[in-house]
C-alpha cells in the first residue's frame, strides 16, 4: 500500500509542478480563456475527451451503471462518439469558430439576443459548480475507500493541485495537463480490461457464464435493448440520446466547446473534435466492458459489494497488485482532475465574459478582465469546496443537476439547430420556445414523473422546436444583417479575411504583417472525412456485435 501511496503523491506533485510550468507566458484574456488560440488538433482531442471523463461522468458512475445494467451503458461511449463528437465537429464547431466568440452563451446572444445568453449561462454555471463539488466529493470518497486517505485533506490537496494550475495558467495549462492526463488514463487503466478478460476466458467466457450458467437476461449484453427496458429503451436511446443529448452535450457544454475555440485553426478544431471520437469509443473498454466480468469475479472470489457505485472500486482493490494499483489510481485521479480543470476554467470564462464584462463592468482594459478571470476562478473553487458537504448529504443537489440537464440539453438543441439552419428563427420565437421547452422538461420530469432521461430530452427538444417555429412565424423576421455569418446559408467565403483579421487583432498581431492565406490540403491521414467515416463505421461494427 505504501508503494501505491508513493506513486499517487509523486503523481500529484508532478501534476502540480507541470501545471505551474505550463502556466508561464499568460498575459491577456485570449491567452487565459482561449489558450492564445494555439492548440493543435491532438491536444484538442485529448483535452476534449479528458474533460468529458471524470469520476462523475466516467469510471465510477458509468462503471457502476455498467455493473447494474450491462452493455447498454456503452451507449454513452459508442453513440456519443459518432453522433456527438463527429456531428458537432463537422457541423456546429465551424459556426462557433467563425463567430469569434469565447462562450456558447455568447454565440446564442449573437444569434438571438441577450435574454437567452443570461438564462443559458446561469443554468450552466450552477451545473458546473455542482459538478466540481461532486467530482471533489467522489475523489475524496474514492481515495478514502481505496487506500484509506483522510477525506477532507485529500479533497483540499486535489483542489490545490487542480486549482493552482487552472487559476494560474487558464485554458492553455488546462489543455496541456488534460492531454498528459489523457495519456495517463489510457495507459494506467487499460490493463484492467486484459486482466479481467484473461481471468474470465474473454468476452465469450463472460457470456457463457452469465447467459448459459446463470440464465441472465440477454438484454444485459445488448447495447440497444427493447422498448420495455427500464433503464434505456432502445428506440429512445436513438432518438433522445443520439439526436439530442449527445449532440447537445458536445455542442452546448462550454468546457468542451471552449477547448475547440482554443485551436490554432478551424481545421485543427474540427479534426480534434472528430478524432476525440476514438478515445471516446475506447472509453467503453476502460469502464464498461470490465464491469461485465465483475459479477463473476465477485461471486467466485466472495467479494462483498454493497451497491453498484462501489463495484468499480471493489474490483480494482481486490484484483490489482501493489504498485499497479497506485498507477491505476493515478489514472483515475487524472480523470477527476481533468474534468474539474475543464469545468473550472469554463465557469470562470462564463462568469467574466457572459456576466461580468457583458452586464456588470463594461469597457475596462483586457488586463482588468484577465485579473478578474483569475479572481473568478478562485471564487468558483471556494464555492465548490463549500458545496462539497452539501453534495455529500443532500439529494436535492443531484435533483437540481438532473433538472438543469433536462433544461439545458433538449431545449438548447432545439434553438441551436433552428438558429443555425433556419434564418427565419428570431429572438422572440427562440426565447418563447426555450422557456416553454424548459418548462415542459421540468413538468415532464418532476410532475409527470418520467424517469427515462432520453424521453425527457427528446420531447423537450420536440416541444422547443415546434413552439419556436410557430412563435417565429407569428413575429417579425430577423434582420439579414443580424443573422449573416452565423447561419448555414451565410457566405463564409467572403468572411474568411474579416474573421482572420479580427482574430489576429485579438491575439495582438499586426494585420498588415500577416501573410496571404494559402489553402493547404491536409495529408490523407489527417483528412477529416476519413476519420469521420472510420469512426462512424466502427460504431456500426460495435452495434453489429453488441446490438
Amino acid at each position, binding site marked *: 500500500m505504501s508503494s501505491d501511496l508513493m506513486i499517487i503523491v509523486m503523481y500529484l506533485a508532478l501534476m502540480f509542478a507541470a501545471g505551474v510550468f505550463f502556466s508561464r507566458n499568460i498575459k491577456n484574456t485570449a491567452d487565459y480563456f482561449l489558450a492564445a488560440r494555439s492548440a493543435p488538433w491532438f491536444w484538442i482531442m485529448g483535452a476534449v475527451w479528458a474533460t468529458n471523463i471524470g469520476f462523475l461522468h466516467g469510471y465510477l458512475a458509468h462503471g457502476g451503471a455498467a455493473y447494474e*445494467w450491462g452493455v447498454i451503458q456503452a451507449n454513452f461511449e459508442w453513440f456519443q462518439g459518432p453522433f456527438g463528437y463527429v456531428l458537432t465537429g463537422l457541423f456546429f464547431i465551424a459556426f462557433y469558430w467563425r463567430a469569434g466568440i469565447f462562450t456558447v452563451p455568447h454565440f446564442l446572444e449573437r444569434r438571438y439576443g441577450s435574454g437567452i445568453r443570461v438564462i443559458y449561462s446561469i443554468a450552466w454555471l450552477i451545473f458546473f459548480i455542482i459538478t466540481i463539488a461532486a467530482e471533489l466529493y467522489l475523489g475524496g470518497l474514492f481515495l478514502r475507500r481505496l487506500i484509506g486517505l483522510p477525506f477532507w485533506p485529500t479533497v483540499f490537496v486535489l483542489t490545490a493541485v487542480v486549482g493552482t494550475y487552472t487559476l494560474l495558467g487558464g485554458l492553455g495549462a488546462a489543455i496541456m495537463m488534460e492531454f498528459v492526463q489523457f495519456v495517463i488514463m489510457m495507459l494506467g487503466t487499460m490493463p484492467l480490461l486484459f486482466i479481467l478478460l484473461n481471468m474470465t476466458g474473454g468476452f465469450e467466457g463472460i457470456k457463457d457464464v452469465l447467459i448459459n450458467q446463470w440464465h441472465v*437476461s440477454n438484454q444485459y449484453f445488448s447495447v440497444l435493448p*427493447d422498448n*420495455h427496458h427500464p433503464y434505456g429503451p432502445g*428506440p429512445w436511446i436513438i432518438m433522445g440520446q443520439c439526436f439530442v443529448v449527445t449532440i447537445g452535450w458536445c455542442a452546448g457544454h462550454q468546457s468542451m466547446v471552449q477547448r475547440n475555440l482554443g485551436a490554432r485553426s478551424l481545421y485543427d478544431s474540427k479534426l480534434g473534435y472528430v478524432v476525440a471520437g476514438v478515445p471516446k469509443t475506447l472509453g467503453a473498454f476502460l469502464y464498461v466492458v470490465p464491469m461485465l466480468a465483475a459479477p463473476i469475479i465477485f461471486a467466485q472470489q*466472495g467479494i462483498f459489494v454493497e451497491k453498484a457505485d462501489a463495484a468499480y472500486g471493489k474490483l480494482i482493490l481486490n484484483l490489482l497488485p501493489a504498485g499497479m494499483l497506485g498507477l491505476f489510481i493515478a489514472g483515475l485521479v487524472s480523470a477527476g482532475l481533468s474534468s474539474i480543470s475543464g469545468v473550472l476554467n469554463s465557469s470562470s470564462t462564463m462568469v467574466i465574459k457572459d456576466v461580468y464584462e457583458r452586464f456588470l463592468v463594461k469597457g475596462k482594459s483586457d488586463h482588468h478582465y484577465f485579473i478578474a478571470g483569475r479572481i473568478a476562478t478562485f471564487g468558483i473553487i471556494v464555492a465548490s469546496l463549500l458545496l462539497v458537504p452539501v453534495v455529500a448529504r*443532500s439529494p*436535492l443537489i443531484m435533483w437540481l443537476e438532473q433538472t438543469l440537464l433536462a433544461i439545458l440539453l433538449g431545449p438548447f438543441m432545439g434553438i441551436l439547430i433552428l438558429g443555425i439552419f433556419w434564418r427565419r428563427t428570431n429572438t422572440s420565437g427562440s426565447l418563447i420556445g426555450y422557456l416553454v421547452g424548459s418548462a415542459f422538461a421540468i413538468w415532464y420530469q418532476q410532475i409527470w414523473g418520467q424517469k427515462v432521461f432520453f424521453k425527457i430530452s427528446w420531447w423537450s427538444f420536440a416541444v422547443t422546436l415546434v413552439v419556436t417555429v410557430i412563435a417565429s412565424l407569428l413575429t417579425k423576421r430577423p434582420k439579414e444583417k443580424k443573422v449573416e455569418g452565423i447561419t448555414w*446559408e451565410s457566405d463564409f467565403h467572403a468572411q474568411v479575411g474579416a474573421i482572420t483579421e479580427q482574430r489576429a487583432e485579438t491575439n495582438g498581431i499586426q494585420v498588415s504583417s500577416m501573410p496571404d492565406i494559402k489553402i493547404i490540403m491536409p495529408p490523407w491521414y489527417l483528412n477529416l472525412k476519413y476519420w469521420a467515416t472510420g469512426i462512424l463505421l466502427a460504431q456500426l461494427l460495435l452495434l453489429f456485435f453488441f446490438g
Partner: protein
Amino acid sequence: MKKVIILLVVVSLVLSIQTAFAQVGELAFIEARQEFADNLTAVKNAVKANDWLLAQQNFDEAQKSWESDVKPMIVEGRKEEIEKARQAGIENPENEQGKLKEYSDRIGEIEENLNKIALLLQSKKDSEIEPTVNATIWAISHQPRGFDIPQRTYSVWDWVFGLGIGLGFCAFAIIAGLYLRRSYYRRYQRLGL
C-alpha cells in the same frame, strides 16, 4: 417574495430530513451486511490456515450478525416497502420492486448456505467451505438489476416504431441535406473551385 423563500426553505428542510433518515437506514444496512461478509471471509481464511477453532468462532459471529441484524432489517424493511406499495394502490404489492426485494428473495438461499457451512465446519470438509462462503457473500451483495429484466422481445408496434425512426431519419437527412444545399447555392453562386 418572502413567502416563496420561506416555503422553499421549509420544503428543502423537510426533504433533507426525510433523506437524512433514509440515508442513515441505508448506511446501517450496508454496515450490517459488511460485518456479516467480513465474518464469513474470516471463516474462509481461518480454514485456509487450518485453524478450525477460529473458523467456528467467526462463523458463530456471522450467524449472530445474520440473525440479529441483517435478516431483521431485510424482513422488516421489505414489509414497509410492501405496505407503501399497497398504500399507493399498486396491485400485487409483493411483486413490487424495492431496494430490499432482491435480498428478501435470497433469504432462503443464504440460510441454506449457512446451514451447509455449519455442517461442513463440523465435518471439517475444507474444500467445500470456500465456494459455499463465497456463494453466501455473493447472495448478500447487491446483484445487477439488469440480470432480472425479461428477455428481449419485439412486438409489431416495436418494429413499426424502430423502422419508423430508421427510415424517418434517413428521409429527413436526405430532404434536409438537399434543401440546405439548394438554399445555399440559391443565395450564393458556386466558387467553381
